[in-house]
C-alpha cells in the first residue's frame, strides 16, 4: 500500500514543554488512523507539526512522498484540515463560509458551487445554508467547521477532535460523514480522546501519552495488550469478605473488585467464565440484579500501559 504520510522522529518543544517526543508512524492510503490520547498528550501539536503550521525541533515529515514545507501549495491542494478550534467568519453565512474556504483551493466557480453543495449535504446543513454561525447550535457549528475543511475534496484529511462537546445527533452525523469521505477514497487522520469513536471508526489506532506513542495497532491488537480477556460486572447489594475471597480463588480469575454495589471480576483467559461465575453465585445463594460480561476497552489498555485512566 502507498504511504501517504511518513513521520520520523518528530520532536516538538514549546518553550519549556516537550509536547511531542520522538514519534514515528506512517499512514497508508485509504486508512482511517486514530490518534487517541488524553488532553495535553500532544495530538494537536503532532498534527500542526505535520502540516508545517508549527516549526519543530527534530524529525522529518513526508506527505505524498514529499518533504512537507509551508510552501508546498500543490501538496496543500490535496490536504483538508479541520482544526480543533472552530474557524469560521461570523459575518458570513454557512454557504458563504464554505464558499470562501473552498475558494482558497478551487478557482473554477461552477466546480466550486458543486463542491460546496456536496459539503453542505455531507454534514447535513442543507436547511441552514443561509444561517450565520451565531445562529447555529454547538453541534451544527462543528459540522460547518468540518464542511469548511473538506469542501475542496482533499485526498488527505486531518480532523482534530471534531466531536468535542457535540450532541449525540451531530456526533453520529459527523462519524457517518467521515466514513462517507473514506468510502470516496480519502485517507483520514482523526484525533480524539473518546475511545468509543476510534473503535467504531478507525482501522488503526495510535495511542499517545505525554507526547509519546505508547502503543499502536488495530483495536483487537491493542486489546491484547490490556492483558485482560474478559471483565464480568455483577450488581449485588451485599457481599461478605469471605465470599469475595472465594471468588478470587476461582479458576482464571485475575482480580476482584467490590465497591458495595458492583462486583467486577477480571479474567486473564479462559472460556465460559460468565457461566461459571453465575453457577457459583447460585450455589452460594447470592442474589444479584444484573450481570454482564465485557471485552476489555481501550481504556483498560491505557490503564495497563500508563497506570491511569484515559477518561478525564
Amino acid at each position, binding site marked *: 500500500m502507498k504511504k501517504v504520510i511518513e513521520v520520523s522522529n518528530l520532536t516538538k518543544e514549546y518553550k519549556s514543554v516537550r509536547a511531542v517526543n520522538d514519534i514515528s508512524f506512517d499512514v497508508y492510503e485509504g486508512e482511517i488512523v486514530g490518534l487517541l490520547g488524553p488532553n495535553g498528550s500532544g495530538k494537536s501539536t503532532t498534527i500542526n507539526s505535520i502540516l508545517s503550521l*508549527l516549526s519543530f525541533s527534530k524529525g522529518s515529515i513526508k506527505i505524498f512522498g514529499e518533504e512537507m514545507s509551508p510552501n508546498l501549495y500543490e501538496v496543500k491542494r490535496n490536504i483538508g484540515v479541520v482544526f480543533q478550534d472552530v474557524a469560521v467568519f461570523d*459575518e458570513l453565512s454557512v454557504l458563504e463560509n464554505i464558499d470562501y474556504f473552498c475558494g482558497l483551493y478551487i478557482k473554477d466557480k461552477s466546480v466550486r458551487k458543486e463542491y460546496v453543495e456536496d459539503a453542505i449535504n455531507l454534514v447535513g446543513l442543507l436547511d441552514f445554508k443561509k444561517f450565520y454561525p451565531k445562529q447555529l447550535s454547538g453541534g451544527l457549528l462543528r459540522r460547518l467547521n468540518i464542511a469548511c475543511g473538506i469542501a475542496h475534496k482533499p485526498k488527505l484529511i486531518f480532523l482534530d477532535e471534531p466531536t468535542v462537546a457535540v450532541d449525540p445527533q451531530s456526533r453520529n452525523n459527523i462519524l457517518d460523514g467521515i466514513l462517507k469521505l473514506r468510502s470516496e477514497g480519502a485517507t483520514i487522520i482523526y484525533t480524539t480522546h473518546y475511545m468509543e469513536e476510534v473503535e467504531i471508526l478507525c482501522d488503526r489506532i495510535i495511542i499517545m501519552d505525554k507526547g509519546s506513542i505508547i502503543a499502536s495497532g488495530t483495536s483487537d491488537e491493542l486489546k491484547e495488550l490490556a492483558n485482560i480477556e474478559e471483565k464480568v460486572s455483577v450488581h449485588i447489594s451485599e457481599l461478605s469478605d469471605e465470599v469475595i475471597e472465594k471468588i478470587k480463588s476461582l479458576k482464571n480469575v485475575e482480580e476482584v473488585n467490590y465497591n458495595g454495589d458492583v462486583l467486577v471480576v477480571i479474567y486473564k483467559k479462559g472460556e465460559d467464565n460468565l457461566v461459571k461465575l453465575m453457577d457459583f453465585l447460585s450455589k452460594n445463594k447470592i442474589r444479584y440484579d444484573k450481570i454482564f460480561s465485557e471485552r476489555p476497552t481501550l481504556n483498560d489498555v491505557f490503564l495497563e500501559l500508563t497506570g491511569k485512566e484515559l477518561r478525564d
Partner: protein
Amino acid sequence: MIVFKSFLRVLNKNKAPVILFTVMLVIFGVINFTSNDSTDVFTSSRPDVLIVNKDVNEGITKTFIDYISKRAEIIKLSDNESIDDALFYRNVNYVIYIPLGFRDDIINGNKPSLEVKSTGDYQASLAQMMVNKFLRVVNVYSGDFNDEWQLINYVNSTFSNETNVEITSKLDVDSLSRMATYFNFMNYTMLAGLVFVISIVMTSFKNVNISKRTTMGSMSYRRVNMYLLLSNLVFALVFWLVCMILSFVLLGDILFSLHGVMYIVNSFIFTIVSLTIALLIGNLISNKNAVNGIVNLIALGSSFLCGAFVPVEFMPKSVVNLSRVFPSYYYINSNELIKSMEVVNFESLLPVFKNIIFMLAFVVLFVILINVVSWKKRRFA
C-alpha cells in the same frame, strides 16, 4: 476574487458605522455651511487684532504696525482682561507679539520672527494673511536696499498700490475657512469610520484560527494578503471619494481652485495614513470590542488634541507638542496652513510638503510594523 468577494460580504455586515459616519459628516458639513453663511460681511472684512510690541515703535516696526492698523481694528485690552479670555470671547481674533529685535532682524536681512495667537476663524485667517503678505514683501526687498528709509519707501509704495483692493475677498477667506473646517472634521470621520471598519474586517481575516486555515489553502498566504490589501485600498478610495463628493456638494465649486486641490491632496494622503493605521490595528488586535475601544480613543483623542474640533490655538503648548506624535497633527496643520495661504505657490506650499513627508513617514513606519506583526503571527508558535 473570492477574497475580494468575501471581503465585501464581511464589509457589508459592518456597514452601519460607515453609514453613520458619512451621515455625521454630512450633518456637520451642512451645519457648518449654514451657520457661516450668516456672518456679517462688514465686520468680517476687518479682523480685530491685538498687537503686543516688545520692539521699538519706529522704523520698519512702526511701518508694520501702521500697515496692520490700516487693515484691521486694533484692539486694546480692558484693565483686567487677559489675552486668552479676549480670544476666547472673540473680542480679539488675532494677537501679534512683536519681539525685541524685530526691526534689527529685518534690517540685517535675517528672517524676522513673530509669535501669534489666533481664534482660528476666518477673520483670524484674514489677519494671518496680512501678516504673511507683509513679511513676504519685506523678504522680497531684503538685501536689495541701502538703508531702512529706502526699505520703508519700497514697502509703502508696494502696499499703496493696492490699498483700495481687498486683500482677499470676503468669499475667499470665508470659503477657505469653511473648507478647512470640513477637512479638519474629516480627520475624525476617517479615523472613526474608515479605520474602524477596516480594523474590524481585518480582525475577522486575521483571526488566528482563520489564518491557520488560510495558510493551509493552496493559494499562497502572500497572495491572500495581497488581495486583502487591494480590497482595503479599494474600500479606502471609495470612502475618500464619497467624502470628496460630499465636499463638492456642500462647498461647491470653490474646491476647483489651487487651495481646493491642496485640501483634496492633503486629505488623500491622510486616507493612505488611515489605511495603514487600520491595517496595523487589524493585525495587532483580535478582539472586536477592543478594536472598538481603541479606535474610538484614537479618533476622538487625536481629533481633540490635534485641533480637528477646536483650533490648536486654544490648547496649552504642552498638549500641542504632545499632539505631534499623531499623524493627524500634520494633516490638520496643513489644512490650517492652506487656509491662511494668500497665494498657492511652491514656496508657500513648502510647509505643507513638509507635513506630507511627515505623514508618509508615518505610512512607512506603520507598514514596517504591520509586516513585523504579521511575520510574527505567521507561524503559530
